[in-house]
């Protein structure tokens, strides 16, 4: 067990290092949220006049939206990295060493989780710099980050499974481009549910992206609705576990297809 933990750490370290050394990724994952914050923030600035946002400043409302959308969009690409490691022969090289098979999978999950958490913290800090107000304090922010990290885990694990299964860049690109905007806009990322059409609200109830938003925003409120946090957070956790389980199964089937 302790060997698995140590090896998980080696694998995590390796992934994080690769991430740091490729400034393009860093740039995309940090510049993009800034652009979104700025664009959506300017575009919808007056929308809070309609009421129902629980705040007079749209930026307050927007920050969790951008945190969650960024967690979704960056983790969706995890499968590309896995695909590259398969094609390059790296994964097979590790599989011929005594490294624990679990550590290979866990390394992906943990490093993606760390990256998502760091990215979320940075967006929250940028929001603060821009003048956003977080009435729920540090607890609320921490729970938002947990929720976005869980959501990232769900989509990171699914993307990895897809990469191992289809082994085609086009499929990952296609699915991601197809899913990102509907998943984001069929949620209360940018719009309060009271202003959403009824059918959209119903769909949003089944959208994990929305679960992360409801959990995060509820926790960040001045007077948090802990029941909302617990139900949505619990659902996310269950889904994340299921997704990781699925990608572990896919990993096994990959090993059989080598």
């Amino acid at each position, binding site marked *: 067990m302790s060997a698995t933990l140590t090896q998980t750490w080696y694998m995590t370290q390796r992934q994080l290092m690769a991430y740091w050394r490729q400034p393009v990724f860093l740039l995309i994952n940090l510049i993009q949220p800034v652009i979104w914050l700025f664009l959506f923030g300017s575009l919808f600035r007056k929308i809070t006049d309609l009421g129902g946002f629980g705040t007079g400043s749209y930026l307050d409302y927007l920050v969790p939206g951008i945190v969650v959308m960024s967690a979704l969009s960056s983790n969706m690409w995890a499968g590309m990295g896995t695909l590259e490691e398969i094609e*390059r*022969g790296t994964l097979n090289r590790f599989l011929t*060493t*005594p490294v624990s098979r679990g550590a290979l999978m866990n390394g992906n999950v943990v490093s993606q989780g760390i990256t998502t958490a760091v990215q979320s913290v940075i967006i929250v800090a940028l929001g603060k710099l821009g003048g956003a107000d977080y009435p729920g304090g540090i607890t609320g922010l921490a729970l938002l980050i947990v929720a976005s990290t869980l959501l990232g885990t769900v989509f990171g694990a699914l993307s990895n499974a897809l990469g191992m299964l289809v082994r085609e860049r086009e499929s990952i690109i296609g699915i991601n481009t197809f899913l990102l905007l509907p998943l984001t806009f069929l949620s209360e990322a940018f719009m309060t549910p009271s202003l959403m059409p009824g059918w959209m609200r119903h769909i949003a109830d089944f959208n994990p992206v929305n679960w992360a938003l409801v959990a995060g925003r509820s926790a960040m409120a001045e007077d948090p609705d802990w029941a909302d946090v617990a139900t949505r957070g619990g659902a996310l956790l269950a889904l994340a576990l299921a997704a990781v389980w699925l990608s572990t199964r896919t990993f096994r089937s990959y090993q059989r297809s080598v």
Partner: protein
Amino acid sequence: MAPTTGGPAPHHLRTRALAVETNQLVKTYPGGVKALDGMELAVESGIVFGLLGPNGAGKSTTVKILTTLARPDAGTAAVAGHDVLRHPGRVRAAIGVVAQKSGADPVATGRENLLLQRRLYGLRGAACARRADELLARFDLADAGNRPVKGYSGGMCHRLDVALGLVHRPEVLFLDEPTTGLDPEARAAMWEEIARLAGEDGLTIVLTTHYLEEADRLAERIAIVDRGRVVVEGTPDELKGELRGDAVHLELSEAVADGAEPPLRDALTALPGVHEVAVDGRRVSARADDGAAAVPTLLTALERAGAAVATATVARPSLDDVYLRYAGRSFDEAEAAAEAPVPAGAAGGVR
């Protein structure tokens, strides 16, 4: 000792410890490609063993099974005395693998790649760093060791791949086509390195290649594989000695008519010291006890049959001839046949 065709290794071989032993390995990939069809190998410890065969013969599949990556559909295999299916962990600890694509991490430095690899075998700390330095120096990568691998030349990457396979001092080292895609200079360097490795105490090297010359040069014993099975096994000299005499190739100025081929072949086979005559259009090939002496006789016989000869060549037997003899087709033909059909879903194609 005569080369053995297919079948298990002769009994006297088994008395020495076997580094690799396989028994009737069968592997069919999804889509119905039968990659292995009764692969039988017995590799003694401490030698360089060559698995020679054209593309698609099943070499990499054999290596994948022996290195615990893939599972056979049937048959058994043991490496360093451990069964690959029952004790994969023990096998992994005992082997080093240099695959066709070993995938060193491009953003990590050569040294970081080595350190991580070493840690995966359970060593940490200063000993780890020492081993990495030792290997960097030995593979002429000392200067490049702290640079990211993505800046390495093809030859440097290849040397790093071999270093990665040696990091934990394995008992059995698998080299899957170690010189494919290398320029002649890098290939010569790699040959030298493999020859050097062969001298290491107790290290067994299983080398796959589709270069006849490479197997001839590096391997103490060779198994020629074709269509997923061993067609013949022995030392390079045994294999070549098994062929009777020199190869004589004649090119006629005009193709022989279809119906005239069999009588011409019979006429030539009847000549003293000439065997295994094959006539195919403009090409006539034969074995001769003494090639130089047989050429005039062959020319006269052909002239009498009304066939004019454009060129004649005599060659000492090569592994190519051995392959032709045992696999029933030439190496080039087999390579061409392997390239023609690309089965759907063959491992992750890069587009």
